[in-house]
């Protein structure tokens, strides 16, 4: 090998202002593409946001659907999809958590941190890649919903707001997952934590069955569970049956507003914690 070939490539000079923003965008995209490359190699990574929701749709629509009645009338399949959309997005925190914990546990994060790339690019690239995966998940859900008889019965504006809320919830959960990934020591820990918190959270709720039939105590928990509120909000905005009797808890009666508040409140807490934790792990 000759040493001359190894020496000798000129770096572009770093420049201020708009160029910085451009670098941030290109650097983040380069890093997001890295995660797409991971999905190409391990497609199973996407199972939790693709096959799993389809499985839940089929399971609840056809196995349990026959015995579950929506109080106040309405089609169970119409009721179900809002719940599964929300459940999938909440479960979606596992992906970003695992990939963040994996990267932080390896030397590659040191390499990225020691490069002269734009500082926030790594986090933004990570969030971008995870967001793309979630958009794919939502699309799959909508399609499988349409197949089993779900539909949008509201105005175009309301439906648009419904999709907006789904995307906001997706972003919220990606940040929550990222925070978990920054805090834990290994990718396995993310799975463990996510499972014991997300599983009860998405089941003690109106996700699959209306909460009216739950025993006292559990019913109140379900009524104030943010997952119930998000599912109710999505159903409301898409014009699906909500099965919320009048006189229910405030967050269920005003589910759209409450759902928004939940998302924004969680983001307000989680974003600064994540950024601080990430800095500490990478340049502490």
């Amino acid at each position, binding site marked *: 090998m000759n040493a001359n070939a190894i020496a000798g*490539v000129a770096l572009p000079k770093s420049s201020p202002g708009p160029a910085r923003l451009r670098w941030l965008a290109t650097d983040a995209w380069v890093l997001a593409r890295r995660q797409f490359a991971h999905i190409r190699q391990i497609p199973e990574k996407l199972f939790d946001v693709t096959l799993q929701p389809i499985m839940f749709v089929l399971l609840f629509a056809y196995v349990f659907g026959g015995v579950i009645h929506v109080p106040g009338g309405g089609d169970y399949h119409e009721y179900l999809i809002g719940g599964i959309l929300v459940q999938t997005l909440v479960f979606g925190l596992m992906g970003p958590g695992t990939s963040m914990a994996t990267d932080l546990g390896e030397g590659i994060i040191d390499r990225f941190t020691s490069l002269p790339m734009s500082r926030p690019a790594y986090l933004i690239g990570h969030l971008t890649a995870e967001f793309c995966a979630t958009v794919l998940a939502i699309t799959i859900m909508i399609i499988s919903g349409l197949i089993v008889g779900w539909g949008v019965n509201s105005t175009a504006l309301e439906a648009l707001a419904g999709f907006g809320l789904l995307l906001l919830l997706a972003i919220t959960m990606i940040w929550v997952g990222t925070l978990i990934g920054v805090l834990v020591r290994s990718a396995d820990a993310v799975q463990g934590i996510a499972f014991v918190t997300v599983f009860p959270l998405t089941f003690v709720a109106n996700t699959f069955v209306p909460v009216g039939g739950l025993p006292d105590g559990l019913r109140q928990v379900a009524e104030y569970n943010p997952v119930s509120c998000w599912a109710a909000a999505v159903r409301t905005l898409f014009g699906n049956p909500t099965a919320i009797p009048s006189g229910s808890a405030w967050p269920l009666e005003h589910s759209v507003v409450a759902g928004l508040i939940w998302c924004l409140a969680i983001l307000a807490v989680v974003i600064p914690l994540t950024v601080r934790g990430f800095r500490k792990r990478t340049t502490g």
Partner: protein
Amino acid sequence: MNQDTQTSHAVVAAGLGKRYGEQWALHEFDLAVPTGSVLGLLGHNGAGKTTAIRILTTLAAPTEGSATVAGHDVVTEPAAVRDQIGLTSQAATVDGLMSGLANLEMIGRLYHLPRKVAQARAQELLAELALEDAGDRLVRDYSGGMRRRLDLAASLVASPPVLFLDEPTTGLDPESRNELWDLLRQLVGGGTTLILTTQYLEEADQLADEVVLLDHGKIVATGSPAQLKARHGGERVVVTVDASEELAAAAQALERVAAGRAEIDHEELFVTAPASESTRLIEVVRALEDGGVDAHDVRRREATLDDVFFSLTSPRGTRATSPTAATPTPTDTEEAPA
């Protein structure tokens, strides 16, 4: 530190320290690495080698002290420092789920090279590091030696004038290690300044112009490998026995006539101790006889860096202090900050 030192030296550190809780991972760390030379940071696990590298590569903020790399302050101008350095840390610093080519291209893009240039550079480096046939394969399928070479290639993408390698050959077989050493020598021949950490004394002996020996976060000796051997080495007396039960008695007997404490090798069944000029082999033999040790072999030999390492570091809280050490530390316990 003055301007002259900064221009003639690629890396300068003054009173650098890093504290985690009550523990100083690195303390009173001074360094001046001339441009184009090789510095070996030597020490056990936890001696502070990686902490020093992390501070100098802007991955950790020092608790106290200051450092410049290529003339830029690591705390106040981290971006300028990152433009000038390449780093290969201990763990895998390449992406196992991407091809070697894609990895290098990605790094080039993150150095803001245009796509075409990044691609060409990636191909060029793969060829230089004998990885061109593996360029399209996933890195997770690489052998240890191949992956380490790719790690190094990734650090060379932007031809950084200052290269940091944290234990570059750990886990490599001797052949791969020799190949990597050759490569590093060529880089240094081309003008690169190299700072490497290692637990292998032979590696420091082979590559380093200057060695800094760290123990419990403090510098215990600095100098060229030859200087260190001369200063802390001198000659050694080696006593080989037939049975492991005799090792302790042999060590005891040897310490009575040698110039320092004896080191026992339980596997190879021998005991080593520093010899002073007045130490005579016949005295050693007599002492062994008095101790009832049936020695198999008794001989003198030149000190190795291993001997220096052993005499200056404290594996079990005992340390032979040497008045000639660059910065002798009289105590073993880490001094908690006031």
